[in-house]
């Protein structure tokens, strides 16, 4: 592994930010002392197992749970009929027609994908719950299945949701600039009939789960879970369960990977809640691997049809129009937000100004889609990158030159895109140069490969990782929605013995929040980060969360750390206020925080350690001035500067920051078989100021590995009857140790002018890798690549 950096970054003494300090989380996680959801046990708890649909599409004609319930050790069951009586359908984000569908926590009357939960069984062991599920008798009347989104709007297509009157879930037209003028000005119009972005997800190694307790006295549920966006789960669950959000206490600690896939477990959590109440005992649910593959949070499958690109002969891109067709699967669990999230990166990295996207989302008899690392932007950025390489090929131009000619330039920053998003900072051309330098000259290698009978290909992927959502973008798909902006919370307090205790609203899944938060706090308070105690996980009892709390969508370095910074600065002010009194009226400006205490700048001997500050306020406060407004317990809500977007024009700033990635893949194909290896790989990243470079690089590596897996191996394939063909890690091949290519990494730092720490959210830049592999396959084979998934067989077919 090689890493190059444009300049050596040397942090000043005692500066914690910018240092690759080891993570606070690591000791417990390497010693087997982490607490993941399946590790939590309660006396008398029952294990929940779901009876799932064996059909992609069928009416449920009868359900009989009596044989299961007769078994000793089976505590009880829950059916869709009971769910429909006890809850209301989940709130729908969609406007018409998708907004009409009735979505419950268990199938009611009909099943719509293989693996859909139909009945839940709770028993005193995992094994018994599974056995008893086999005794639940469900009669089905099978219906034709709809598995190809391109067939969904045909008049004879099977109809999933009667309530919606068709399979159309959402449709919208996005148009900016002057398409007619752009196409009139063009020297060439490049046409691309169809591009396909395939269905996969990040398969976190820990599946979903929960342990739910119901307190009869307070009518409150405590939900120990690994859901990564409790704020969203709460607003979905509360209205459905007809309770206030105070009745839903979410608790997380360690989460075994999320990648967006753990946002939409709210239906299963509702089932756990209902059963915990019904059976009067704690209910434990841990999803099996096959259950996850069949039912949880597939990434959006998308087609781009009838694409036309207006381009000048020199490769200057003027604009494009395309029809995007998105396959939502059977339910809208987070959708149709995917119908707008892509617009955060409408022009990709390029300066074209005239763009039209007709976006259509349909339902199919497949697992519901939900966010997956790079959610919806990845699909669109793959499309823009495919367009660049196809245009370059059609015009006989070098893809590097086309990119450099059209990239948004460093001097253009901050750059307003045609749809009003603001790219905050960056230098894409410089990043490309660094990536190409890491790879080095390829012509000799190409000749060498040829001499060995191999085809060498080089591909570039250049993408953006937009972070910190403006939830106002949801109004572009449903003007009735009352969401906008974003927020995150942190509390920082000084306790009796001087303990600095930090609480976050986030739900980290490996991003090292305890560590980076401590780095920020230590710099502001002038202490060691070892003295900063960051509570692990999330607990809605801590009063350190807000409506959008969670860990998703590349935002912790902005939302989370800005909240930490805000709360710590409040605490710093309070410490000085207190010290000012203790030191007999020395003005706060004459004080500084250093070495774990507060002192007079000109007289460092006058030193009050944090321990004394904490003790005075918390336990020895008689005689303090009445007007001393100090608690040493500070809560700060960070709210990014957003406006509500213009709904008519579909215009406005949809995200606060734009981290950038340039990846270059070099592959060698065996033309006889289509087998190929990635023989060299460079990933260059720019996420603004890096609080902990090692953690940043870890995210870059992980996203790269997932991209390689998705590009080469991973796919959720269905047969014509709607059976998932890749329901486990045998058939769904994720990269193993032997699959990993050599990796070279590089970076630049373009601080964001819009964020308190100059940081940008990051971690979702893997899409660059999918594209880089596609481009390399195109380069090696000389054939236009139209699919994001290129297993060996497809490459072989390309070569025929």
């Amino acid at each position: 592994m090689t890493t190059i950096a444009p300049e050596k970054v040397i942090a000043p003494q005692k500066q914690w930010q910018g240092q690759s300090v080891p993570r606070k989380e690591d000791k417990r996680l390497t010693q087997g002392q982490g607490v993941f959801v399946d590790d939590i046990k309660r006396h008398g708890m029952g294990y929940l197992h779901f009876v799932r649909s064996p059909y992609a599409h069928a009416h449920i004609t009868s359900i009989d749970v009596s044989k299961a319930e007769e078994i000793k050790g089976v505590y009880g069951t829950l059916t869709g009929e009971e769910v429909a009586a006890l809850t209301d359908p989940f709130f729908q984000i969609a406007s018409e027609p998708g907004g009409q569908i009735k979505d419950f926590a268990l199938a009611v009357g009909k099943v719509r994908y293989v693996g859909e939960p139909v009945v839940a069984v709770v028993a005193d062991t995992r094994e018994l719950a599974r056995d008893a599920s086999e005794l639940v008798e469900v009669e089905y009347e099978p219906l034709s299945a709809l598995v190809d989104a391109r067939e969904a709007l045909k008049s004879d297509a099977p109809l999933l949701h009667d309530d919606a009157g068709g399979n159309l879930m959402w449709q919208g037209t996005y148009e900016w600039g002057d398409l007619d003028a752009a196409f009139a000005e063009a020297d060439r119009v490049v046409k691309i009939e169809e591009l396909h972005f395939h269905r996969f997800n990040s398969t976190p190694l820990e599946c979903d789960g929960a342990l739910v307790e119901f307190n009869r006295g307070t009518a409150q549920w405590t939900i120990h879970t690994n859901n990564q966006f409790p704020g969203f789960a709460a607003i979905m669950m509360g209205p459905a369960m007809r309770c206030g959000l105070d009745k839903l206490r979410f608790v997380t600690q360690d989460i075994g990977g999320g990648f967006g896939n753990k946002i939409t477990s709210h239906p299963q959590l509702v089932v756990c809640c209902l059963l915990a109440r019904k059976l009067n005992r704690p209910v434990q649910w841990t999803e099996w691997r096959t259950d996850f593959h069949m039912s949880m949070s597939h990434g959006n499958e998308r087609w781009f049809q009838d694409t036309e690109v207006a381009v000048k002969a020199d490769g200057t891109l003027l604009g494009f129009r395309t029809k995007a067709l998105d396959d939502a699967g059977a339910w809208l669990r987070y959708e149709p937000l995917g119908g707008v999230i892509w617009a955060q990166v409408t022009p990709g990295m390029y300066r074209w100004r005239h763009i039209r996207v007709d976006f259509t989302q349909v339902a199919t008899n497949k697992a519901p889609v939900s966010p997956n690392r790079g959610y919806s932007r990845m699909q669109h950025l793959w499309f823009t990158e495919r367009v660049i390489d196809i245009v370059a090929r059609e015009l006989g131009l070098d893809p590097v030159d086309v990119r450099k000619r059209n990239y948004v330039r460093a001097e253009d920053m901050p750059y307003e895109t045609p749809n009003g998003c603001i790219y905050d900072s960056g230098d894409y051309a410089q990043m490309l140069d660094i990536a190409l330098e890491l790879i080095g000259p390829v012509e000799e290698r190409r000749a060498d490969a040829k001499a060995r009978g191999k085809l060498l290909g080089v591909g570039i992927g250049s993408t953006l990782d937009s972070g910190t959502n403006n939830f106002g973008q949801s109004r572009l798909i449903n003007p009735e929605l009352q969401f906008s902006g974003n927020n995150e919370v942190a509390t920082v307090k000084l306790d009796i013995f001087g303990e600095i205790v930090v609480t976050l609203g986030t739900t980290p899944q490996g991003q090292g929040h305890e560590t980076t938060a401590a780095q920020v706090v230590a710099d502001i308070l002038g202490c060691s980060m070892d003295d900063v105690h960051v509570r692990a996980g999330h607990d809605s009892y801590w009063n350190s969360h807000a409506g959008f709390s969670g860990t998703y969508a590349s935002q912790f370095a902005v939302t989370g750390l800005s909240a930490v910074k805000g709360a710590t600065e409040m605490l710093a002010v309070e410490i000085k206020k207190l010290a000012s009194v203790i030191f007999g009226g020395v003005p706060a400006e004459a004080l500084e925080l250093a070495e774990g205490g507060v002192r007079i700048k000109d007289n460092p001997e006058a030193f009050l350690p944090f321990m004394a500050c904490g003790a005075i306020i918390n336990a020895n406060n008689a005689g303090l001035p009445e007007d001393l407004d100090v608690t040493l317990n500070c809560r700060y809500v960070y709210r990014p500067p957003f406006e509500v977007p213009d709904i008519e024009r579909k215009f406005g700033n949809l995200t606060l920051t734009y981290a950038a990635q340039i990846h270059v893949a070099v592959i060698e194909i065996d033309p006889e078989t289509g087998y190929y290896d990635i023989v060299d790989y460079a990933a260059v990243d720019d996420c603004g100021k890096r609080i902990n470079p090692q953690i940043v690089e870890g995210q870059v590596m992980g996203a790269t590995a997932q991209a390689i897996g998705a590009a080469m191996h991973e796919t959720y394939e269905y047969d014509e009857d709607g059976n998932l063909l890749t329901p486990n890690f045998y058939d769904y091949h994720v990269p193993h140790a032997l699959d990993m290519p050599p990796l070279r990494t590089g970076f630049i730092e373009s601080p964001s002018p819009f964020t308190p720490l100059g940081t940008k959210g990051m971690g979702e830049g893997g899409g660059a890798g999918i594209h880089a592999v596609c481009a390399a396959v195109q380069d090696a084979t000389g054939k236009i690549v139209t699919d994001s998934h290129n297993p060996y067989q497809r490459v072989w077919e390309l070569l025929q």
Partner: protein
Amino acid sequence: MDVAVTVNGTLYERDVEPRKLLIHFLRDDLDLTGSHIGCDTGNCGACSVIFDGKLVKSCMLLAVQANGSSVETVEGLSDGDEMTALQQSFSDHHALQCGYCTPGMLMSATALLRAKPSPTDDEIRKALQGNICRCTGYWNIFEAVKAAGR
């Protein structure tokens, strides 16, 4: 069925269902929750333990098969509170993110380093091929094991 299994040096005697998997026995009966479950099919290696000196996936064995045997899990790696050199190396090299695969990864690496104290890059990759990690891309894990092996 009665089983007597020594885990991390302690003898445990329990009555278990014959069909109970060793991983569920460790996690649910002995409350040794450091070993994890990621796949149910023997692919992911999160449940890897050392069984009578040999690296195994504990979801591929029944608890009753462990009767009379000696099992080492991640909880037994460090002697006391301090991290071992291998655990420290994982932290130093940022070889873990969510930490879910880490216990299995550490057991595979431990088995490798016992057999080959200074493994080559190739040997490291082969030794870890039965352990899936979805967070790191493995590169930092290779570095961590290599550094620990020196």
